[in-house]
C-alpha cells in the first residue's frame, strides 16, 4: 500500500473489495463468469433456428420480432419456416438472403433430418452432438447455463432476503419472540425437503408455456419458491447470532440515546455490521442452488420438459452411458461452472476475513 492510499479514507467494504481484486484466481473467475452470464442473455441472437433477418422479394423480415408463416416464404410446410433451408435456397439467387445467428440451431428443435438415429455423435455442425430427441447438446447446455445460474441467484436472493429479515427480527427483539420463532423454524426445518417437492409436483402439474421466456414461466417461480422456502432458515441462524452480538455493542446504545428509531437502528446501524458471514456464504449458496436444480431435474422433479436443463441431460447420459458426449459435456459444464463459483467464494471469504493479521500459521 502506498502512503497516499493509506491516508485516503476508505470504507471497510471498499477495502474488502480491493482485497478481493487482489486475489487473482477469484477475481478472474468472477469476471469470466459474469461476462459469460451476461452474454448468455443474448443467446436467442447467438444460437437459434430463427433467422435474425430475411430479405425476400424486396422486403425485409425480422423473425426475432414477429412470427411469419412458412407459406410467406413460399415454403411447403405448415407453421414456422425452416430458415436454414431457406438460406440454402436463397444462396443460389443474388437478390434474396437470410441472416442466421452464429450457431443456427435452436434449443427446442429436433434435428431429425440428420443421418442415423438420435442421439447423434458430435460433428462439425453439432459440436457436442445431439441428445436422444435429436436436439443440439451445445445449445441446450448454453441455454441451461443461463437458466441454472439465474435460478440459483434468484433462490439465493429470495431466501437471503427472507432469512435476513426474520433472523434480524429474532435477534433484535429476542426474548419470548425469539424462543417461539426458533422453535417454529426448527419444526419447519425438519420437514423432509425431497418429499415435499414430490408432493408439490404431483399436485401442481408443471406446465410449460411454449415461446415464453424462462423467467416468465410459472413453474420456474414455483420451484424458486419451494427451494427458497427450505433454505431461508439457514440464514436466520447466522443473522440472528450476529444481531445478538451487535445489539449489545456500545454503538447501538449510543444510537439509541441519540433518539434514532428502532427500525433505523435495526436495518441501518446493525444490519451492515451483521452481513459479513452472510456475504461470504453467498457464493457457496449459489453452488448449492445450482446443484439442487441439477439434482431435481435429474430426478425429474425440476423444471418441466422441454426446458433446456443440465440435470435432464445428465439423466440422459446415465441412460445412454455408451454415448460419451451425453455424459462428459453436461457433467463438464456443471463441474466447470461450480468450480468457478467456488473460486469466487473462496476469494470472497478470504477478502472478508476479519482476522487477516492475527491468523496463526
Amino acid at each position, binding site marked *: 500500500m502506498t502512503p497516499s492510499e493509506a491516508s485516503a*479514507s476508505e470504507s*471497510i467494504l471498499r477495502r474488502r473489495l480491493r482485497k478481493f481484486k487482489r486475489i487473482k484466481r477469484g477475481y478472474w473467475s468472477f469476471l469470466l463468469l459474469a461476462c459469460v452470464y451476461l452474454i448468455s442473455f443474448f443467446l436467442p441472437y447467438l444460437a437459434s433456428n430463427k433467422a435474425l433477418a430475411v430479405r425476400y422479394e424486396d422486403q425485409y423480415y425480422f423473425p426475432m420480432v414477429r412470427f411469419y408463416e412458412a407459406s410467406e416464404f413460399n415454403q411447403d410446410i405448415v407453421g414456422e419456416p425452416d430458415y436454414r433451408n431457406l438460406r440454402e435456397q436463397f444462396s443460389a439467387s443474388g437478390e434474396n438472403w437470410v441472416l442466421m445467428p452464429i450457431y443456427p440451431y435452436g434449443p427446442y428443435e429436433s434435428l431429425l433430418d440428420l443421418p442415423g438415429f438420435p442421439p447423434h455423435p458430435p460433428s462439425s455442425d453439432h459440436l457436442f452432438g445431439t441428445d436422444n430427441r435429436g436436439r443440439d447438446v451445445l445449445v441446450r447446455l448454453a441455454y441451461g447455463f443461463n437458466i441454472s445460474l439465474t435460478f440459483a441467484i434468484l433462490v439465493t436472493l429470495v431466501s437471503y432476503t427472507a432469512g435476513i429479515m426474520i433472523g434480524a427480527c429474532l435477534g433484535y427483539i429476542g*426474548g419470548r419472540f425469539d424462543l417461539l420463532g426458533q422453535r417454529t423454524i426448527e419444526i419447519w426445518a425438519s420437514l423432509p425437503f425431497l418429499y415435499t417437492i414430490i408432493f408439490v409436483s404431483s399436485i401442481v402439474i408443471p406446465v410449460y408455456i411454449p415461446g415464453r421466456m424462462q423467467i416468465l414461466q410459472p413453474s420456474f417461480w414455483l420451484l424458486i419458491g419451494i427451494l427458497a422456502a427450505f433454505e431461508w432458515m439457514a440464514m436466520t441462524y447466522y443473522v440472528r447470532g450476529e444481531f445478538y452480538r451487535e445489539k449489545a455493542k456500545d*454503538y447501538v446504545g*449510543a*444510537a*439509541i*440515546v*441519540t433518539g434514532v428509531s428502532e427500525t433505523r437502528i435495526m436495518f441501518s446501524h446493525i444490519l*451492515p455490521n451483521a452481513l459479513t458471514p452472510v456475504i461470504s456464504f453467498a457464493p457457496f449458496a449459489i453452488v448449492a442452488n445450482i446443484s439442487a436444480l441439477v439434482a431435481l431435474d435429474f430426478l425429474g422433479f425440476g423444471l418441466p420438459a422441454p426446458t433446456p436443463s443440465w440435470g435432464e441431460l445428465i439423466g440422459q447420459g446415465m441412460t445412454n452411458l455408451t454415448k460419451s458426449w451425453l455424459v462428459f459435456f453436461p457433467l463438464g459444464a456443471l463441474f466447470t461452472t461450480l468450480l468457478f463459483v467456488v473460486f469466487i467464494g473462496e476469494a470472497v471469504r478470504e477478502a472478508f476475513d476479519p482476522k487477516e493479521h492475527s491468523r496463526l500459521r
Partner: protein
Amino acid sequence: MTSPLLQIRGLRTHFFTESGVAKAVDNVDLDVRQGEVLGLVGESGSGKSVTALSVLRLIPDPPGRIVTGDIRFQGRDLLSVDWHNIRQVRGKEISMIFQEPLTSLNPVFTIGRQVMEVILAHEPKTSREQARTQSIDILTEVGIPDPATRMNQYPHELSGGMRQRVMIAIALVLNPSLLIADEPTTALDVTIQAQILDLMLELKARRVGNAILLITHNLAVVAETCDRVAVMYGGKIQEVAPVRDLFHNPLHPYTRGLLTSLPRVDGHRATRLTTIPGAVPDIHNLPTGCKFSTRCTDRFEPCDNIEPQLIEAAPDHWVRCHLHE
C-alpha cells in the same frame, strides 16, 4: 430558588433476575439544577449508571423495570411519556455519552454521517447541506482539526480521544439542556482525560443554563469539575453536598472512607493506602438497615435495623446516616 432542571423523586429501578430481585436503584431523590455540574460518585454496582439510564428510560426490560418514582425534566414527567416522545427527548433535550468511545461509533459509517444522522433524526426538515455545515461547526467546536476531511473518515482512523470528541459533538450538536456523561474519561489516557474534561466544561460555559450530570468513580475528576456531588452506595444516595463542603467536611462515614483512601502526593511519608474494610454487599441481599452498616467503622445500635433518612445536616448538605440525626 428556581425549580431544578431534572428532578428525581423516589426512583426505584429493580432488576428481576433468576437469583432474586436486585434493587439497583432504591428510592433515589436527586436534583440537577440549571447550569450546574453535578457529580454522581460511587463504586461499581452502586446504582449510578442505572439512575442515569432510568432518566432516559433505557433500562432493559426484562429484566429491569422502573418500579416507582417520578422523574421530571423541565417540569415534564419523563416516566409517563410514550415511546415516540421519549425518543424526541433523547439526543435533543438530554444527551448521553458513554465510557467507551472506541466502540460507541458505528464502524461502517463515516464520522460525518453519524453526526448528521442525529440532526436529521430530530429535525427532518433540515437539508443535508445544512446538516453538513452544522456538523462541521460542532466538530470544529469540539476541537477536531480539519473537520471537513474528518467528516469523510471512518471511526477506525481516529484516536480514542478524537472519538470521544466526536461522541461529545454528537451529544451536543442539538444543544441539549442536560448532558449525562457516564464515566466519559475512564477509557482514555490520563493526559487525554484532562483535555476531554476541560472541553466539556468549556462547551458548557458557552451554553448558558445547560447542566451536566457527571457519573464517575474518580474523586479527583469530581474535585476538578463539579459544583455539587452526590455519593451513592447500595442503590441509595448517601450524601449530597457542594463540592467544597463534601471534600472539607464529609459527614457520611462512607464518604470519609472514600476520601481517606485517596492516594496523596503531598507531604506525607509513604504509608499503606487506607481502604474501606469489607466488600460491597451482594446486590440481591442488601442489609435491612443502613446499606453501609456491614462495613461502617462507626456503626452503632440502630444501624443494623433502621434505615436512616436523607436529612439536611447543614445548609444544602444532605446526608443519610444515624450519626447525624
